[in-house]
């Protein structure tokens, strides 16, 4: 029936911000750590590479870090479970507001094929950048921002800087 119902408008951003802040605060008070996202795919990539070519990961400190010393299963990871929750939470919220829909989000002046190509390129840049920066918008900007981590604040300004610098060149995708 949700197909027929009209999608509800998004919520007030300040209310959402307080809600998100309280979730982050709860993570800190209960777990002593904040939120994250990009380390979930990192662990998966490291585990897959290790499965396919174990000799290849032995001398690579990046993969080794995610695989661990073998005493625990690397996939039994806090952020992986948290990201599963993110997918569930997003789906729940979208369902309640009738916003679940199979579609491609894009501006009017770009083809679906080009939009999906850009999505893949953007994701690739994001994955690479997040690893170089030791975290993404969740793990660095949001989480580190709240504890006044110097690197996180520098990172946050760089993210907006990079976004605004690139925005002009990619405007046909969105406007």
């Amino acid at each position: 029936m949700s197909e027929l119902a009209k999608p509800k408008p998004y919520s007030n951003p300040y209310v959402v911000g307080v809600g998100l802040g309280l979730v982050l605060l709860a993570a800190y008070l209960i777990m002593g750590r904040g939120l994250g996202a990009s380390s979930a795919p990192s662990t998966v990539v490291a585990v897959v590479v290790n499965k396919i070519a174990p000799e290849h990961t032995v001398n690579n400190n990046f993969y080794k870090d995610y695989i661990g010393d073998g005493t625990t299963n690397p996939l039994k990871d806090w952020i992986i479970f948290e990201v599963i929750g993110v997918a569930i939470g997003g789906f729940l919220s979208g369902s309640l507001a009738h916003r679940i829909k199979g579609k491609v989000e894009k501006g009017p002046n770009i083809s679906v094929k080009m939009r999906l190509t850009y999505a893949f390129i953007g994701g690739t840049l994001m994955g690479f950048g997040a690893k170089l920066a030791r975290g993404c918008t969740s793990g660095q900007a949001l989480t580190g921002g709240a504890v006044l981590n110097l690197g996180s604040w520098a990172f946050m300004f760089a993210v907006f800087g990079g976004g605004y610098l690139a925005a002009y060149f990619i405007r046909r995708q969105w406007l």
Partner: protein
Amino acid sequence: MMPYFKFNYFGVDTSLVIAVIIGIGFGFALERGGFGNARILAAQFYFYNMRVLKVMLTAIVTAMLGLFYFSWIGWLDLSLVYMTDTFIVPQILGGLILGVGFVVGGYCPGTSVVSASTGRYDGMIYFAGIFFGIFIFGEMFPILENFYNSTPMGRVTLPDFLGLSYGMVVFLVVAMALGAFAAAEWGEKVRFRITGRIKE
């Protein structure tokens, strides 16, 4: 004492259940904010819709004030809260690359999960792209390792760096956020008057 996990109130298995619950709250909030939609996120970079800035700063301020309060009344040991060490130059370069990826792809990792789980194909493709980007980084790591570990500053906060008290920096961040909100509200109105575009 908080953080509870650090004082062994529960074990690893329970922590994973908590991870899912906290994740649900995180994903729910992101979707409510409109962040499962790349057009809303990208609009931030064209000044059409400043939701990203408003939600992010409000969340940071809320959590920051909460942490400050619980540490001030003595319920929370802030030194036990996990914080990544700062490696300033690679983090700034990584942030720039990530910012470009944000506007090119339309999402960040967390928001792409919400986008994918609410049916957006661009979010799913983007999420696949993240794996590819991490794989490239992993394969290049032997070359990148020196740079990755350059300019280490350890566990350092803005109060340490600026030589100000924690409370003073909290106050300055709140003041900056209020200023940014006022500018964002004003900017959206001006943008609307120029272009006549309805903000979503």
